[in-house]
């Protein structure tokens, strides 16, 4: 668990450094989306550090399309 924490800390330090370098007058919308992306990354970092199998992007995309995809696979393999 220590190694993933170190990796994540390094990644966020790197990201923070880049944000400082890019510091210009950002629009409000830009800040909102940037913070949104960061919040999502915090959730994913939590999953990565703890090694838990939480809800993820593949689950979101599988939800509406998995049944038809399995149906097509069944057609081709039957």
């Amino acid at each position: 668990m220590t190694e993933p924490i170190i990796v994540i800390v390094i990644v966020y330090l790197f990201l923070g450094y880049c944000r400082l370098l890019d510091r210009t007058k950002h629009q409000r919308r830009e800040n909102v989306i940037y913070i949104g992306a960061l919040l999502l990354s915090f959730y994913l970092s939590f999953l990565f550090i703890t090694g838990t199998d939480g809800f993820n992007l593949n689950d979101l995309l599988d939800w509406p399309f998995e049944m038809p995809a399995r149906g097509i696979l069944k057609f081709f393999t039957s």
Partner: protein
Amino acid sequence: MRKVEAVGNWQMIILFQAFITGSSILNIQGPLIGIAQNGAWISILIINAFSFFILALILRLHERYPDESYIQYSKKLLGKPLALILGVPLLLLLFHFNANITYGMGQFFTTSMMKETPLYVFHFLILMVAGLTVRSGVEVMARMFNGLLFFVLFIILLIFLLNITHYHPKFLFPVVPNGWKPILHGAYVGFGFPYMDIMYFAMILPFLKREKDKPFKRWMYAGLLFNGLILAFTIVASLMILGPIAMSEKFPIYQAARIIEIGEIIQRVESVFGMALIIGSYMKITMMLFIINEVMTQLFNLSDKRAFVFPNALLVFLFSLTMYENEVELGESGSIMETILAFFLAFVPLVIVTIRSLFTNKSS
């Protein structure tokens, strides 16, 4: 990224080739041979023929709106709300595919060549370099990938050339061992990767410098045909070298590189394949990251493109580490889900936009 960036015709064609051939030349043989067996080369040629239709749609829209990307003319043609409804799933799809490519590259190294190294080391390093390249802009990418693409092609051809004594043409028969269904299944899988990627390239086309005296469309079609032929060649060569073993290998070219033995000097050059895989994956991940950044900034009207490169790279990094627990899950995602996702979230919106453009005056 500077405000005005443009690449020439030839550079754009090289970028296109790097995008569709760069990583597929190393990844596609295993899954396709696994599904279509000896007929895998027919699968790739079938889907390559269909992909001309996708390229024709993209080039038609580009001809009509030369200075705009797919997201920009979608907004114009469908209106902002509908463009947002179609664009957000496309953005998620791009994140998903880029994470898959990253995971595929990392998995290869942790299961075959560098088994003690943790997965996140490969993902972190390749995405950091990809992020830095995207921040440098499309011109730098075009200049860099020119040499790198030829290097990858050279390595692949060298592996097949050094295997010259191992070819067994009899392994190619029967060409259709289990009927046409597996071949059509192979073509179906090939639609999701690599051929639907042509549509994502519509985000890079507006960077083309207008050189009307030089044929651009013709060379793009020729590039696509070249891609189909070279992928079919690598499949045929893998089948001739490995025979039935190729059907259970994820990377047949890697196995082909392992059995090279010319005297005692040239033996087991699989590490060279590893180099080619890194370069191919790097080109693909970089261009996908560039496209993700373009889609995100244009979809939400963000002016500072550079600011979002590293957050996007971070998301791809974390998605690639948390989406799958093992290689089997990635394989299932690639062969079962990728095509249907690409069809509904990328191809259908593209057709809708194209049909809408037919009924719209350019001035409006």
